[in-house]
Structure formats: C-alpha cells, structure tokens
C-alpha cells in the first residue's frame, strides 16, 4: 500500500547538523536497548501464558517470591538505566549548557509571532542593536532600542531566512505573544520560544539546501501553518545574499534620512497608538 517499515530508525529526516549524527547514534542505542528488553519481556510473557495455561490436571504452585531474585532484578535495571542517564548527560551538556556553547561565528535573533517566524540579522555593522520589551510594538517586534545606533541597520526577515553552512550560529530566541517552539527537524534541535525571556540555542548546519522550520508548541488555530524556510548556503553564496540585503537596507535608511516621514506608513500603525504610547512612556 505504501512505504512502511517496522524499523523506526528509517523514519528520521536527513540529519545535517554537527550533532545530528551523535543524536541519532544515541537514539539508536536506546532503540536497540528497548527492542531487546521489549522482546525479552514479550517472549517471556507469551511463553508463560502458553506453558502455564489452565488445562486438565495442571496445578499452580504455592510460592510467594524470592528475595535474591528481587535483589537481582532491582539492581540490574538500576545499573542499566542510571548508566544510560549518565552516558546521555554528556550530549545534553553539549546541546544545552551555556558554558559549552562554542564561540559563535554568527548571532541572530528569532522571535515567534502567531503565526510567523521573524529573524533579525546584525546588518552592516555586524552588531545586533540593544533591545528591550518596553520598546516592543507591532512595528518593532524585536523591541529594538531606537537610541542605539547599532540597531538602525539591523535586517529583519519573516517566513524565510538564510544561514551559512559550517558556522556556529547562536540563535537568541523569544516570542512576542504566546509560547512557540523553534523546531528544525533536520538539525535535531527544538527549543521553546518563551515570551519575556531570551533563550540561546546553537546549531551548525553542514549541508546546503532548503530546510523547514516548524512551530512545535500549540500557539492558536493557525499553529499548523507557522512554517518558515531556512536556506543553508555556502559561505560565498551567503555573503553575496547578505551584501544584497545590506545594500537594500542602506537605501531604505538613506531614503528615511532624506525624508523624515516614513516612506509608506503601514496601515496597522494608526490602529495601535496605545502600543506606541506605552513604548515611549518608559
């Protein structure tokens, strides 16, 4: 009827991050361990069901248990599972501990908004401008500090973004409304985007191509469509793409400098004076 395999390991989407292979290896270890225990128990169960079924002349024995056996089958899983826990902790540290985050080659901000992903690049100066929730409004999702010059040239993208391959990218992750979750299946990484907090995630993709970024935390009726596309590019291609973005941003800034009025005020701006008022009163 369709391509179906009972072997779970065949279902992984292709892994393309520096730790996807280690992740899949760990998964494989737990998987085969589980398959072994699963078969051991199920076969024992079925054997006992068959051998000790009720039939004429068959009798059960009077037996309440055995402490040596209890001790052995308490100790064995303790050693096995505690060992597994300690073993896995190393990979957990690599993925999560802030002290283990490698030197970033690049830092970006990502915020979730129902039902879109927005990404901020540092722009021409290579530095992300300061941000604070008090500056946040529908026009300034990242809450970029208007008084910080580094923020002026920052580039914001929605729904699609590019990253260079073989670079340690540190993502500062947050949300402007409800919880979202930043899920890159091919990178084997997922992290909740929590409004009010900035959480660091890092990854390093090793293959160019287009990959999907999904939202994995229920965020409302449009949750299912909160999808973005990540273009992984070679260094040269990424630099070329980034140069184009920087040039375009410079043109916009120059136009704004020449004419202090915004070029084309978005229609939503008039609808949200309250937000602006809050922003400026702090």
């Amino acid at each position, binding site marked *: 009827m369709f391509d179906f395999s009972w072997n779970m390991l065949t279902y992984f989407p292709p892994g393309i991050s520096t730790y996807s292979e280690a992740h899949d290896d760990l998964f494989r270890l737990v998987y085969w*361990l589980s398959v072994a225990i699963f078969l051991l128990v199920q076969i024992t169960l079925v054997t*006992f069901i068959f051998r000790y079924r009720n039939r004429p002349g068959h*009798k059960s024995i009077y037996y309440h248990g055995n402490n040596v056996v*209890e001790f052995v089958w308490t100790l064995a899983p303790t050693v096995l599972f505690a060992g597994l826990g300690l073993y*896995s902790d190393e990979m957990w540290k690599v993925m999560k501990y802030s002290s283990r985050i490698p030197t970033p080659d690049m830092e970006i901000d990502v915020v979730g908004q129902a039902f879109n992903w927005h990404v901020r690049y540092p722009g021409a100066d290579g530095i992300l401008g300061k941000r604070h929730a008090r500056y946040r409004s529908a026009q300034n999702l990242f809450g970029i500090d208007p008084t910080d010059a580094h923020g002026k040239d920052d580039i914001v993208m929605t729904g699609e973004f590019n990253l260079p391959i073989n670079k340690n990218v540190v993502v500062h992750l947050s949300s402007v409304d409800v919880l979202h979750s930043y899920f890159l*299946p091919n990178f084997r990484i997922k992290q909740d985007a929590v409004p009010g907090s900035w959480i660091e995630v890092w990854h390093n993709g090793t293959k160019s191509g287009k990959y999907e970024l999904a939202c994995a935390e229920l965020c409302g009726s449009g949750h299912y469509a909160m999808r973005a596309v990540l273009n992984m590019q070679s260094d040269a291609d990424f630099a070329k793409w980034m140069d184009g973005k920087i040039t375009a941003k410079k043109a916009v800034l120059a136009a704004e400098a020449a004419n202090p009025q915004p070029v084309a005020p978005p229609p939503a701006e008039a609808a949200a004076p309250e937000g602006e008022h809050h922003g400026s009163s702090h």
Partner: protein
Amino acid sequence: MAAVATQHDHAHVATHDESHAHDHAHHSVSFIRKYIFSTDHKTIAKQFLTTSMFFLLVGGAFALFIRWQLAYPGEPIPLVGKWLPDTLVSNGAVQPGFYTQLVTMHATVMIFFVIIPMATGAFANFCIPLMIGTDDMAMPTINMISFWLVPVAGLTIMSGFFVEGGTAAAGWTNYPPLSASGTGHMLWVIGVFLVGFSSILGGMNYLATTLNKRAKGMRMFDMPLTVWALFITSVLQVLGTPVLASAMSLLFVDQVFHAGIFIPENLLTPNGGLYPSGANVGAGGGGQPVLWQHLFWFYSHPAVYIMILPVMGVVSDVLATFARKAIFGYKAMVFAIMAIAFLGFVVWGHHMFLSGMSPLLGTTFMLSTIVIAVPSSIKIFNWLGTIWKGNIHFTSANLNALGFISTFVCGGLSGVFMAVGPIDVYIHDTYFIVAHIHYVLFGGALFGIFAGVYYWYPKMFGKMYNETLGKFHFFLTFITFNLCFFPMHMIGVGGHMRRIYDPYVYEFLKPFQPINQFITIFAIAMGFSQLILIFNLLWSLKFGRKAPRNPWRANTLEWAAPSHPGHGNFDRDITVYRGPYEFASPESKRDYLPQWIRPAHVEQETTIAEKH
C-alpha cells in the same frame, strides 16, 4: 495502641448493628437518596463508572474527529459533519479553530473525566470498603459531594462549546499566555478546579477509610494490592491536587483581573495592540509563563501515577486470582508502588526540558526520571513471576490484565526515550509523545480498568457478564489499539508534530499521509469496538446469569459479601486470618484460601462459602 484496638472492635460491633438497622429502614429510603444523592459507596462507585463511560464516548468521538482531519484534511466528516454548526465546520469539514478545541477537549475529557474518575472514583469507592471488610467509607457525605462535583465540572467545561470564541483551545496543559484570555478558558479553569476538588475530597476519604476501618485482624500488609495502590494514589491526590488548584486560581486571576502572574511585559495581541496585563505597568516588570508549567506539572506528573497506580493494583489482583498463584514478591510490589509515587513528585521537570529552564535542572530531572524505570521494571518482573508456574485461566478480566502488561512494557520503554534529554529535544511535542501517552493511558490504564470492570462486575451488579463478548471485545481492542498507536512512534521519529490541523503544509510530513490514514482506520475500528463492551455490560445487567458470591474463587474480602451487597455490605462478621494471596496453599485442599476462613475450619467453611 490498646485504646485504638478497643475503638476498632467497638466500631466493628456498631457496623454489625447498623447493617441490621439498615435492613429495617430499607423501604423508607427515597428514590433520590438511594440512587441520586446516595451516600452508599457502591452506588457512588456505579455513578462514577457510568459518568466516566459516558465521557469515554464523548472523548472518543472527539478523537475520531481529530483522526479524520489528519487522514483526510478538509474533507467533510462522515455522518455527523453536516449537523455541526458553521462556527466549527465549513461544508462539514473541521475548521482549524475547532481542531485545537478538539485536541484540548479530547485530552481534558479523557484525563479528568474518564481515567481519573474511573481509576480512583469508581475503583476506590467500590473496592476499598469491600476489600478491607467494612460497611462504607469513613465520610459518606463527603464521598457523595466528591462524585457530584464531577458532572458539575464536566458541564462547566462542556458549556464552553456554547460561548463566544468557543471552548478552551490551548491544549490540556493549558499553557498561558495562550490560555490567559477567552471565556472558554475561564470555564475550563473553573471546571478543572472543581474536578480537582472531587479528587482531593475522594483522596482524603480513601486515606481515612483505609487507615481506620480495616476489618478485625487486617494489618496493612494483609491488604490486597488494589487497596495498597489506591491508598498510595490517595496520598498523591491529597498532596498534588491542591497545587493544581492554586495554579488554576492564579490563572483565573490573570484571566479576570489581568494581574500578569504568568504574563510578561508588553505582549502583543493579534490585532497589534498590547495585551492587558499588570505586568505592563512599570519598567522591567513581568510575569513568567514557565511558572505555570512548574505548577501544572508538579501536579500533572503525579497525576500520571494517579491514573496508572490504581490500575497496577487491580491488575495484580486479577493476575493472582486467575493464575491461581500468590503475588510474586508482595512486599516488593508495595515498595515499588511507594517508590513510583515518591519519584513521581521529583520528576515534573522532564515535561519542561525545552521550556528554557536551567539545563543543570535538566540533568537532575533526566536522572530522577530515568530511575523511575527501576520500580516499574520491578513491577513487570513480579507480574511475570506471578504467572510463572501458575494455572492461568483466560477470562475476559485476565486477558485485559495480560494485555495491560504487554502494552505497559511498550509505553514504559518509550518513556525511556523521552527521559533521555538529548533525545527528548527532538521527539518532544511530536507523535512519539502521543504514542507514548496512549500506550500508558489507553494500553495501560484503560486495559487495566477493563480488567477491573470485568472482574468486579458480578459483585457490582450481581450478574455475570458474557465471556464470549468479553473476549471478542478484548481481542478487537488489543489488535486495533496496537495498529492504531504503534505507527505513531514512526511518524513521531519522522518529526510529525502533535496538535497540527494540517500536517501536509510541511514538505517533510507529506509522505506520512498514508500512515495517518492507516492509523485513522484502526482508530475508528477501535472506537466502535467499545460498543461491544457497553452492550455486554448493559445486556448482562438484564439477561446475565445470576452471580454467585465468589465466582472467581478469589481470596479477598469483597467475595465474602453477597452479590451484590446491600447497604452495609456484609451479612456476617469479618475477621482476617491471613494475607490476600494464599492460592494453592498446602493448608487447603482447594487451590484458594480466603482471608476470612478460620484456620481450624478451612474445609468446612470453604465448602459452606461455595454453596452460597
């Protein structure tokens, strides 16, 4: 100690007198007092059972709508689609908003109104007084209130379907900020608060009853494992549920007064304005959404054990009775239940590996969680030890108990994957989790509940159920269950997120549509298989063979009472002389030896008991 003993004896005599008094007063009890606002633990157990069965059908229907949408997105729901209002469906097909309501209500109904009321409400009420040989609960009126809170809470939550904006739609975990606005979410919070109170009142009662009202001669270690499991579950209910109640109260304050407890500073609403919140006032203020997750999971992880522990007790009793053999390692089983309950309180963080909490905490929770596999393994091994060299009878009750072991092993092992932090990062919020929870709560809890319902049906209603239908129901359910839920592991490994209305928006999920259709076919088959159970239970009520006192030749005290027992339960004095699992004992010529039979008169008294 002497004083306690005297009081105990006194209570026992009083019980006996009271049961006579009740016989005389029997006719004067009005219909309403007898069947509706009853304080009799058996009636309350039946009320819990029937209410939960009703909600099982409701929750099951929700699940089938979900499955239909995942298999055939955008196509009209067969049969019922055209009857649903336009706010929920368009041209008979599920709308995205309705879909999120469905996933929320399916889980809410199944957890708070099916599994918990059945596992604790129905079984604790029916089993505890009968299995410890007493006339009723310690606090019968509180017991009645504990039941009546459930339908009130259920109606409150269901009424969300009729308010503007629809019912709760933030998942059963109800994470703010998403859940911090909307009438449907307020009703949900009130409903869960009420059903939580039912749990607290019930738990108190079960604790008081087990500690104070055991029959003469019954030590704690003479109690059947069902009672032990329910006793320890009650501790979880009494300690855990108040935390849930406090979380609900805090969220309510956020919803109504915009206090900003869980709402950080300057959140945007969909129309671009700022979310009203006390946290907006003053620079740098702000609530913390992750606080909700801590409070919620501090209750809801132990709640997983509230759902599974009673059933582990039931399965132990059913297995021992039908294997005609003592529980292997009775004390080890009791200590394993205690260990699971204790560890249950220190592992809630494994639901929050991705919440942004300190990764150092992640390490701690990973290790504590993985250690739960140890007492769980002990239980599995002891069950296998129990049927080893037994004489296994394949009644419907026992088939469900054996099915429980088989599926619980699978659910337990998939739990190890998510206990391992780095793997959880990937499979968190995917169908792997959905597969796991259903292997534990359907394959585990519900098979155990079926086992218990079949096992105690004769005592509950005084009639035997139909074995052929019972076996048919078990095999159909067991096969369709595995074909429905096992493939969910696969698409979970493929990265298929949960709670998504249309997975095929994503390129990488498009190949999984045939698997989703496969799952849906067996989900529908499994859903309709449950009609056999309901038919069997109802049909046997009228046409079933009259049940003898002890149809399974079991050892525990409930089988000393008439089938079914009147108000006051026992028509004789009950004294306990031995443990609950004396099967194939050399003391008796038969393969069982009930707890209440006097040691010097084993043959004579067992013969008399069998004639009843």
